[in-house]
């Protein structure tokens, strides 16, 4: 057994807990999970059945944690997990799984399959079987500070632009602010309007907020790759920043996995509960809306639909807020089939969009989104995740669909009247 395989197996053994044991023991091979997974529905290839993506981990569970499995192993009747096998499984555990969690929502015996995929990635990563694309992103986040290599000067330049364009100061390292706003590299590079939108919204709501010079990047490729050590380093930075600035709440940007990493995994990664709250920007906007702090004027009149980012909705529990916000500024808001809790993934979540060799499959899986869109024929598509946005744009372009994609926060901000006007 190679050293890396040994490490991978050890990590896998460590992550197997009672829920996983229960899930493996409950599976009846009914195949219903496949019907929920866009990689199966769009390709028809049974190897993309969610539970099958965990086969090496299942065997390991059986061999290590069950009496019968141990007996079988002793007499040499069981098939050990090998390097080659884990290598082969890379495509199944990463390229063809976006951690969207639809499978976990339908399994009749109640298996939380995505929970297991997340854990299996720990073993894959430890055994050196994670895809280079996400590995690179994770390493850049740790060494440079962001997956796309964005450094503080770039953020500062961005701040300056926004200050000039909007005439609103962007606070940096303001101690005691109520909110600490996180960004994703994707936003810094591709969607600079986001920062301006935040500035306008916060100003109108009369809230204090700040960016943090030591923690501005929220995306966590360490979590996507399944390396808890890296994920912890990335989260710790944010925790330290938030605690140093004594903020009440850290706002996750329009990025689904950043939200999951910070909101749901963060405290578990650092090993203690947070001293501050974590909210997705859409949750914060929802609160402002309820408190009457979000006043907009005018309506979008073209036909709009909303793509729920998996980590925000199904995996994060934020479902109604985005709809209420849409209704405030969109006169012609239509829902796609399966929208909300059971929305279909864009095909690029969970780090999948960083995997070059997965592109063909991703575009194939995008047919699901295409059919959802074809059902309502919107003029524009609104979402609340910079990663979804990029993946959606790629897919739309590939299928020659002329549907611009916009971020919800920016769209809301556009309707906030200029101050003093």
């Amino acid at each position, binding site marked *: 057994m190679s050293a890396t395989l040994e490490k991978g197996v050890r990590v896998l053994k460590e992550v197997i807990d009672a*829920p996983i044991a229960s899930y493996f023991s409950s599976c009846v091979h*009914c195949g219903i999970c496949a019907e929920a997974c866009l990689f199966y529905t769009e390709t028809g290839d049974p190897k993309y059945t969610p539970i099958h993506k965990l086969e090496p981990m299942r065997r390991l569970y059986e061999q290590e944690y069950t009496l019968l499995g141990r007996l079988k192993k002793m007499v040499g009747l069981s098939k050990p997990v090998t390097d080659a096998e884990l290598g082969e499984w890379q495509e199944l555990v990463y390229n063809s799984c976006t951690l969207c969690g639809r499978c976990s929502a339908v399994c009749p015996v*109640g298996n939380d399959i995505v*929970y297991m995929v997340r854990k299996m990635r720990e073993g894959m990563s430890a055994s050196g079987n994670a895809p280079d694309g996400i590995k690179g992103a994770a390493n850049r986040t740790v060494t440079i500070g962001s997956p796309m290599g964005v450094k503080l000067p770039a953020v500062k330049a961005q701040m300056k632009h926004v200050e000039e364009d909007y005439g609103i100061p962007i606070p940096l390292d303001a101690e005691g602010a109520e909110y600490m706003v996180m960004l994703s590299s994707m936003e810094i590079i591709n969607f600079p309007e986001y920062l301006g939108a935040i500035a306008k919204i916060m100003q109108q709501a009369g809230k204090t907020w700040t960016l943090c010079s030591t923690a501005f990047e929220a995306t966590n490729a360490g979590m996507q790759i399944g390396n808890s050590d890296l994920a912890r380093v990335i989260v710790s930075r944010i925790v330290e920043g938030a605690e140093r600035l004594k903020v009440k709440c850290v706002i996750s940007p329009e990025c689904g996995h950043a939200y999951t990493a910070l909101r749901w995994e963060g405290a578990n990664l650092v090993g203690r509960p947070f001293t501050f709250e974590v909210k997705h920007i859409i949750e914060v906007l929802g609160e402002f809306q309820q408190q009457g702090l979000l006043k907009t004027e005018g309506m979008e009149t073209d036909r709009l639909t909303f793509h729920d980012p998996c980590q925000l909705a*199904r*995996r994060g*529990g934020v479902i109604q807020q985005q709809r209420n916000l849409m209704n405030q500024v969109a006169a012609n808001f239509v829902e796609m089939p399966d929208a909300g809790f059971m929305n279909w993934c864009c095909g690029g979540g969970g780090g999948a969009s960083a995997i070059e060799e997965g592109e063909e499959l991703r575009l194939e899986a995008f047919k699901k989104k295409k059919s959802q869109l074809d059902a309502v024929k919107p003029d524009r598509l609104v979402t609340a995740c910079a990663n979804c946005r990029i993946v959606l744009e790629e897919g739309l372009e590939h299928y020659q669909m002329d549907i611009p994609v916009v971020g919800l926060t920016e769209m809301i901000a556009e309707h906030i009247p200029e101050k003093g006007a």
Partner: protein
Amino acid sequence: MNEMQFLTWVRGPGLDLAVSIFLLGVVWRLVEIYSLGRKKDLAAPRNVPGASGWHTVFRRSIPPEGMVKRSPVSYIGGYVFHIGLAIIVFLFVPHILFIQSVTGLSWPGLPSQFIDLVTVVTLAAMVVVLVDRINKPVKRYLSTFQDWFTWALTFLPILTGWMAVQHLLLPYTTMLALHILSVELLLVFLPFTKLFHAFTVFGSRWYNGKVNGHKGVPV
């Protein structure tokens, strides 16, 4: 061994042995699985009504929207044979009498003609589910020896029981003995195969509901 001796054995030592293995097996497996425990979730919970382990234990018995259409045989066949099986096992008068003889507990049963009908429907549903397993690429792909074996383990007690009652093929005594033997085999293998989902289904649904309920997501 003549048929009377055979029947006596399956009713006596055979049954004792099977029930012992079953009970020990169930306890062993439950301990083996749930003693692994899990880490406490340190993220601040979001409390939403309807999002909890218990909710999911019940809610998962109802198919999520649109899923029946995508996998009709699994759902309809699954319902029919699970409910059918429960009716046969717990509401057939001779079964109740047997349970009473062992535990002292008793309850009213259903007329045997009705049980007959349920049995035929259940057997048919199981055949349909089997055909689906052979035909449907995903199911065939997932299937291992265990899937075929456990299907037979479940099918045989129903078939032999029905044949015994109908006096088909073999003398009643022999068929009854075979029926009891097949039940014993089922009991012996249940804890160590996928049939154990009969127990772990509750734990699995509960964990899923609990973990997602922590996030305020009713699953």
